[in-house]
């Protein structure tokens, strides 16, 4: 692999990595939010009987 192709490859890796970090980061944030809401809903129901 020549220098140009190697640099291109590194940029492609960077673009793909950024994509997955953003997408998986958002999914993780959604998961945390979902769990917090489930706990809040359960507490809400318990408090009101």
């Amino acid at each position: 692999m020549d220098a140009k192709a190697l640099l291109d490859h590194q940029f492609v890796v960077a673009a793909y990595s950024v994509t997955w970090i953003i997408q998986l980061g958002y999914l993780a944030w959604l998961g945390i939010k979902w769990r917090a809401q489930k706990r809040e809903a359960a507490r809400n129901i318990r408090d009101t009987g």
Partner: protein
Amino acid sequence: MKKAAISLYVVVTLALMIWGFYQAIYVAPTDAMQGEIFRIIFYHVPSFAAAFTFFSVSFLGSIGFLSFRRSHPEWAQMADAWALAGAEVGVVFCTVGLTTGPIWGRRAWGIWWTWDARLTTTLVLWLIYVSYLLLRRFTAGPQMQTLAAVLGVFGALDVPIVYMANRWWRTQHPAPVFGGAEGSGMDPSMLHPFLWNMLAWFAWGILILAIRYRVERQHQKIAAREAEQALNA
């Protein structure tokens, strides 16, 4: 049954993502002009296609909320949840497009960014929907949903402008690959990997859109219950 269908959808989506990645890296040939860097197209373009689609979902949800808020309050709440989910997932995909684009541009053009019509209108679109999300996050009260819906409707007007920008004006951004001038298009050896990735990213987008919708509906129910408790206290 419903759980099994959801699990199956998740498995199919993950399989599509893996297959799409394989197609993009190992199957698609290296571009004769751009070389390896061209492979960014398999993530960059589907991200913007998904962003535009989810902003359209937000637009329809906003219209639905404004239409039903007096006659069918429950429908209006559902429409509002779709509007929020569409805007948020759209921002996620638009962020991906706006970060992969400069990475590609740095190698292809030698610059990270330029203020041409395509890039600028896309940044404005992103800023409009980020402001939509900030409006929803930092305001409260009965008018919040209505204001957000109005912003959602006006924000969506930028989507066709972004799409047409490199057709209407001369831009640093390349001319459209699909639906452009005569001779535009993609070789089938690249088109098939591209379509697999398009399918995979849409499947992924629909999955996170559905999760975000569920979270928002749950939030609405908790808020309604708390409001009812406050009234009864």
